[in-house]
């Protein structure tokens, strides 16, 4: 039938018909690639090839000074961290990133992680492991059990499978673990409902943190039959043209139990006119235990004062004290301290656990270490406006310091640990002819996406471009497999 009609058509009509059909197919193909009705797609970038037909989906690494791109030799990461964005025509729920790389890293940089930007207010990335050399090392020396992406390392062979270990872990009764769980267990990329209790806890006295702190902070509080009452006095510096909303969230484990928001109408953008703000959180009849408070603000906000009904209050991983004209004592439980000064007036000699350390350059991260066996190491600052970071907790009073978190097999972790068990969600990268291939699965639900782009980070803690050490990470290929809802699911839901 069609053939008979086709034969009757003149040549020009047939030619136009074919070209028209090709046009419809091309436009249809691009519309299909926009909608992706089956909900999955894979994008990749080969860094050994400089030629691309289009702009591509995986954009260049930034900042440029931490990257050295040589044609045909891949992208060489010189400093930590580096970022890249991924353009996607629609949203997705999951991303599986496969990275082919060669690692020329020293023993001081045992960790490589990748993650997606989850929170654009405080620039928080959800990081997942690519390579953890400490675990790779212990996998060869300790008893190893792997089950569906989980890894259990035991100094002595006490468990034959991970489910038995997890059963005991959930009731806080690990085999041969007499003391506190913190003393015999190390975790990495592993979450569980850990019920921390302070032994011989005395009823709390009110506590005032009268030290201004700039930007986002997280802290733990501990209560036992007490009311959680937190009063935050905050100051919007209005140095940035952007609005500075305030969001304070209280978590019990991973569950949100209270949340307060303060919208910024941004009436004085970049004016330098300060605005005072106040947020009060009050929760009664809370079960005993640890609560995490997340103050999600930009660097335009200073937490001027925190008035707390609870005296066990410890800041997690970071404090940024500002506006201080007196000597400041801060306590930490960690034997490592990273310090960065953003202001030349803040350069000084810091005393950390009794040892002096010179902070003589701005915008440079200094790493200080101590062998002190004290639970609370004192940090003496004679000038504020320095960012203090480590893998532990900080407090402004020695009695406030407590760390309910378990030790993590992070970049500070020593393989000479006293722990008996290590539990992790981790798979060692596959190594072939000097090239390593690692896969990371990331949850994109709730990940921040701007102008159709997700932002990713590759982190090698301790890797510095300007330290004179010839260590780097050569990335040859990145492949990102995305999965999301199908068109039918979108229509029916």
């Amino acid at each position, binding site marked *: 039938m069609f053939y008979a009609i086709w034969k009757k058509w003149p040549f020009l009509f047939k030619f136009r018909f074919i*070209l028209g059909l090709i046009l419809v197919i091309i436009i249809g193909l691009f519309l299909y690639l926009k909608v992706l009705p089956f909900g999955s797609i894979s994008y990749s970038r080969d860094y050994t090839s400089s030629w691309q037909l289009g702009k*591509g989906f995986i954009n260049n690494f930034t900042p440029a000074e931490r990257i050295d791109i040589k044609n045909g030799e891949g992208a060489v990461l010189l400093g930590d961290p580096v970022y890249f964005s991924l353009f996607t025509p629609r949203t997705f729920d999951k991303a599986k990133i496969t990275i082919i790389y060669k690692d020329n890293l020293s023993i001081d940089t045992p960790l490589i992680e990748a993650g997606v930007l989850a929170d654009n207010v405080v620039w928080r990335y959800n990081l997942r492991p690519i390579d953890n050399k400490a675990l790779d090392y212990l996998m060869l020396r300790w008893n190893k059990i792997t089950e569906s992406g989980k890894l259990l390392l035991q100094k002595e062979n006490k468990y034959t499978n991970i489910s038995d270990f997890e059963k005991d872990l959930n009731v806080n009764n690990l085999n041969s673990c007499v003391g506190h769980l913190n003393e015999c267990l190390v975790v990495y990329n592993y979450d569980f409902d850990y019920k921390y209790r302070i032994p011989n806890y005395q009823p709390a006295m009110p506590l005032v943190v009268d030290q201004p702190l700039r930007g986002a902070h997280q802290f733990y509080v501990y209560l036992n039959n007490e009311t959680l009452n937190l009063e935050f006095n905050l100051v919007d510096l209005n140095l940035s043209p952007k609005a500075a909303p305030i969001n304070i969230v209280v978590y019990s484990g991973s569950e949100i139990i209270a949340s307060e928001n303060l919208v910024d109408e941004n009436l004085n953008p970049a004016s330098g006119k300060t605005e005072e703000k106040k947020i009060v959180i009050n929760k009664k009849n809370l079960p005993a235990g640890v609560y995490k408070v997340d103050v999600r603000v930009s660097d335009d906000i200073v937490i001027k004062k925190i008035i707390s009904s609870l005296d066990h209050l410890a800041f997690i991983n970071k404090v940024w004290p500002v506006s201080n004209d007196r000597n400041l004592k801060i306590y930490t439980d960690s034997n490592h301290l990273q310090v960065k000064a953003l202001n030349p007036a803040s350069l000084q000699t810091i005393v950390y656990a009794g040892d002096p350390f010179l902070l003589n350059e701005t915008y440079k991260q200094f790493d200080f270490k101590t062998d002190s066996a004290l639970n609370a190491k004192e940090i003496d600052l004679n000038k504020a406006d320095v960012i203090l970071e480590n893998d532990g907790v900080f407090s402004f009073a020695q009695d406030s310091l407590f760390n309910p978190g378990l030790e993590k097999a992070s970049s500070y972790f020593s393989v000479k640990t006293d722990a008996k068990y290590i539990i992790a969600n981790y798979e060692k990268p596959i190594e072939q002819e000097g090239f390593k291939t690692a896969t990371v699965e990331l949850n994109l639900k709730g990940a921040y996406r701007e102008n159709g782009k997700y932002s990713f980070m590759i982190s090698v803690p301790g890797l510095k471009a300007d330290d004179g050490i010839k260590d780097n990470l050569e990335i040859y290929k990145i492949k990102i497999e995305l999965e999301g809802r199908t068109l039918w699911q979108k229509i029916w839901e």
Partner: protein
Amino acid sequence: MAKDLGVISREIFYFFSILLFSAIILEIIWPNIILAYFNINYIFSAAFISGLISLTKK
């Protein structure tokens, strides 16, 4: 023969022109929908060359 070539090159010029126009419209509606895969300059070049051929064969 030259006349046929002229007609064919003209039709190809129309094809690339419509494709270029459609690609620009799609890019305006959904940025990067085409540019991520394919540089539109290539379509513009093809339209330009086919247009020149069509003029010379007229």
